[in-house]
C-alpha cells in the first residue's frame, strides 16, 4: 500500500490541516507507522516502530489542539529519530549488533524537546553501525541491512543517517533527526534528494545521543524543505545543562529580528576554486545552474580555500575519539560482531593511535578553524556540491583510498571548525539520482543560511520532486 499522501506535505501544510480538522495527530501517526512498517522496512530504514509511545503522544496532541492549547508548528507532527538517540519505549541499538538489546530509561534532550514541542515520535530509524566511526567500507554496515534509496532501491541512501534520509525522502515522515560527525546529515540529504541541516557545533545538545567523536558530533534535522528545517531547529536548539558543549545561545525561527542584513547587491557567495575537479559532469551542470539562480539574489565569486591537511586531521581525530568512546567494545572483542568486515578490524588500529598524533591533529585543527572563520566571515555562504557524486550502487564499496564518493571541498574543514551547513536538492544526475547544493556559513549563522536556502527553494522546484511510489 502506498504511503498516505498527507505524509508528503510540508510541516506547515500539515499544521494547517491539523488545525482545520482535516486530519488528526492520531491519524497521521497511524499513517506514518503503517508506511514505515511496509515501505520503510523494504528500504531498511526502520529500527523500531514505537506504536505505544506514538499513540500516547498523538492522543495527547489531539486533545491539546482540540482544547486550543497550541504548542507551535510541530504540534501533532510525526517524526523519526536516528537510532542513536535514547528514547524511552524502544531499544537504542546504535545500528550495531552488539547493542541490539540496549535500553535507556531516559530521553535524549532532543527527543524531550521535540515532545515539548508536541511532535509525535513514531520510530527509531536505521543507521550505519556506530555512525560509521569504525571505518566502514561496505554499504550494508548495519544490522538492519543496506540503507536503500527511495529513488532507486539498488542504490545507497547514504550514511550514516541512512534511515532518516530514506524515510523522509520516501514521504513516510515529514521530518527526522540525524547526526553528523563528518558528512552523516548532508550526505543522505544529497543522495536522497531532501534538505538536511547540520547546525553549528554546540547549537544542539547531544545529551542522550551516542558519542562517536565528542569534539565533532552534531545533531540536526532532515526534512523536505528549508522552512521545515527551521521549524525543527527552533525546537531542538539551545543550551542544556546535561551537555557542557551546548552553548548559551538561543535560536528562533523565523528569526525575530527578520531578514538578515545584506549588501546593496544582495548576498555574497563564494564558490571554492577547483570545485569541478573530481565532480561528476552532471553535478557540475546542476551546480552551474544553481549558481545562476543565486546570482538573482547576490554575487558569486571564486574563493581559494587554503591547502590544509583537513581530511587527515578529521580522520585522526575521529579514529582516536571513536576508539576511546568504544574502548570496551574493542577490548572485550564484541567489535568482532559488527556487520561490516572492515569495522571488525580497523578499530584495533585506531586504539593504537599515538596520543601525540591525536594532539597534533587537534593543534592543527585550531589553525584550520581560524582560517575558515576568516574565510566564512567574508561571505554569506560558501556554496558548492554537497557530494561530488550521486548515490553509489549498493554493490560498490567505500574504500577510502579509491572511494567512489567524494565530499564537498569544505566538508572536512567545515566539520572540524563546527560550521553550519545546509544541503538542498538541485536536480538529478547520473542514473537519474538526486544531486545537491550545499551552503556553508560562519559559525552561528543558521538564520542567514536558512534565509538564503529558502530564497533558493522559492526560485526552484527541485525540493518538490518525489521518488516513485
Amino acid at each position, binding site marked *: 500500500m502506498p504511503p498516505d499522501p498527507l505524509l508528503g506535505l510540508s510541516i506547515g501544510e500539515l499544521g494547517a490541516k491539523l488545525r482545520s480538522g482535516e486530519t488528526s495527530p492520531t491519524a497521521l501517526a497511524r499513517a506514518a507507522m503503517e508506511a514505515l512498517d511496509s515501505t520503510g522496512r523494504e528500504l531498511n530504514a526502520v529500527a523500531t516502530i514505537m506504536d505505544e509511545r506514538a499513540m500516547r503522544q498523538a492522543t495527547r496532541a489531539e486533545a491539546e489542539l482540540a482544547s486550543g492549547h497550541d504548542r507551535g508548528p510541530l504540534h501533532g507532527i510525526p517524526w523519526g529519530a536516528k537510532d542513536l538517540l535514547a528514547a524511552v519505549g524502544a531499544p537504542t541499538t546504535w545500528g550495531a549488533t552488539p547493542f541490539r538489546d540496549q535500553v535507556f530509561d531516559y530521553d535524549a534532550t532532543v527527543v524531550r524537546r521535540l515532545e515539548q514541542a508536541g511532535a509525535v515520535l513514531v520510530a527509531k530509524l536505521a543507521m550505519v553501525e556506530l555512525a560509521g566511526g569504525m*571505518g566502514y567500507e561496505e554499504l550494508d554496515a548495519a544490522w538492519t541491512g543496506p540503507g536503500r534509496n527511495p529513488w532507486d532501491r539498488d542504490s545507497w541512501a547514504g550514511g550514516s543517517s541512512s534511515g532518516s534520509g530514506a524515510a523522509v525522502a520516501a514521504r513516510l515522515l515529514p521530518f527526522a533527526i540525524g547526526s553528523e560527525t563528518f558528512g552523516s546529515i548532508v550526505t543522505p540529504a544529497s543522495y536522497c534528494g531532501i534538505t538536511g541541516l547540520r547546525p553549528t557545533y554546540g547549537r544542539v545538545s547531544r545529551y542522550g545521543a551516542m558519542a562517536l567523536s565528542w*569534539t565533532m558530533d552534531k545533531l540536526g534535522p532532515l526534512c523536505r524543505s528549508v522552512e521545515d528545517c527551521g521549524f525543527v531547529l527552533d525546537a531542538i536548539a539551545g543550551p542544556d545543562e546535561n551537555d557542557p*558543549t551546548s552553548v548559551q545561545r538561543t535560536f528562533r525561527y523565523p528569526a525575530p529580528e527578520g531578514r538578515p542584513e545584506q549588501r546593496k547587491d544582495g548576498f555574497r557567495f563564494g564558490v571554492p576554486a577547483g570545485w569541478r575537479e573530481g565532480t561528476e559532469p552532471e553535478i557540475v551542470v546542476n551546480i552551474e545552474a544553481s549558481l545562476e539562480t543565486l546570482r538573482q539574489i547576490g554575487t558569486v565569486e571564486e574563493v581559494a580555500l587554503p591547502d*590544509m*591537511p583537513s*581530511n*587527515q*586531521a578529521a*580522520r*585522526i581525530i575521529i*579514529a582516536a575519539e571513536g576508539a576511546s568512546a568504544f574502548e570496551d567494545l*574493542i577490548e572485550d*572483542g564484541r567489535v*568482532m560482531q559488527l556487520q561490516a*568486515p*572492515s569495522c*571488525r*578490524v*580497523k578499530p*584495533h*588500529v*585506531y*586504539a*593504537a*593511535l*599515538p596520543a601525540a*598524533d591525536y*594532539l*597534533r*591533529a*587537534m*593543534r*592543527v*585543527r*585550531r*589553525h584550520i*578553524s581560524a582560517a575558515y572563520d576568516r574565510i566564512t566571515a567574508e561571505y554569506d555562504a560558501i556554496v558548492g556540491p554537497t557530494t561530488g557524486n550521486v548515490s553509489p550502487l549498493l554493490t560498490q564499496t567505500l574504500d*577510502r*583510498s579509491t572511494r567512489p564518493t567524494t565530499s564537498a571541498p569544505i566538508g572536512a574543514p567545515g566539520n572540524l571548525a563546527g560550521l553550519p551547513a545546509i544541503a538542498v536538492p538541485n536536480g538529478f544526475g547520473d542514473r537519474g539520482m538526486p544531486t545537491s547544493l550545499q551552503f556553508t556559513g560562519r559559525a552561528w549563522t543558521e538564520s542567514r543560511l536558512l534565509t538564503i536556502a529558502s530564497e533558493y527553494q522559492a526560485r526552484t522546484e527541485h525540493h518538490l520532486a518525489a521518488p516513485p511510489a
Partner: protein
Amino acid sequence: MPPNSKKEPEIPAMATAALARFGDRFDEAQREVLIKTARQLEEAAEDLRKWELANGDEPDSAFSALQGQDS
C-alpha cells in the same frame, strides 16, 4: 648475500602494536586490512607533521575547570 634477502615492507608501528594486543583475532586477510589501515593513518599523521606548529599552539579542545563558587 643470502638468497632470500628481498626486503619485506615494514609493518607500521600502529599495526605492530595492534597485532601485539589483538593479533589472535585476525586471519590473514584481516591482518592485511589492519596493516593497510595503519599505513593510511601513518600517512595522515605524517602529513600533519609537515604543518608547522609553534610551541604555544594548543590543541583545539575545550577544557575548563568545573563550575563552582568563589570562596
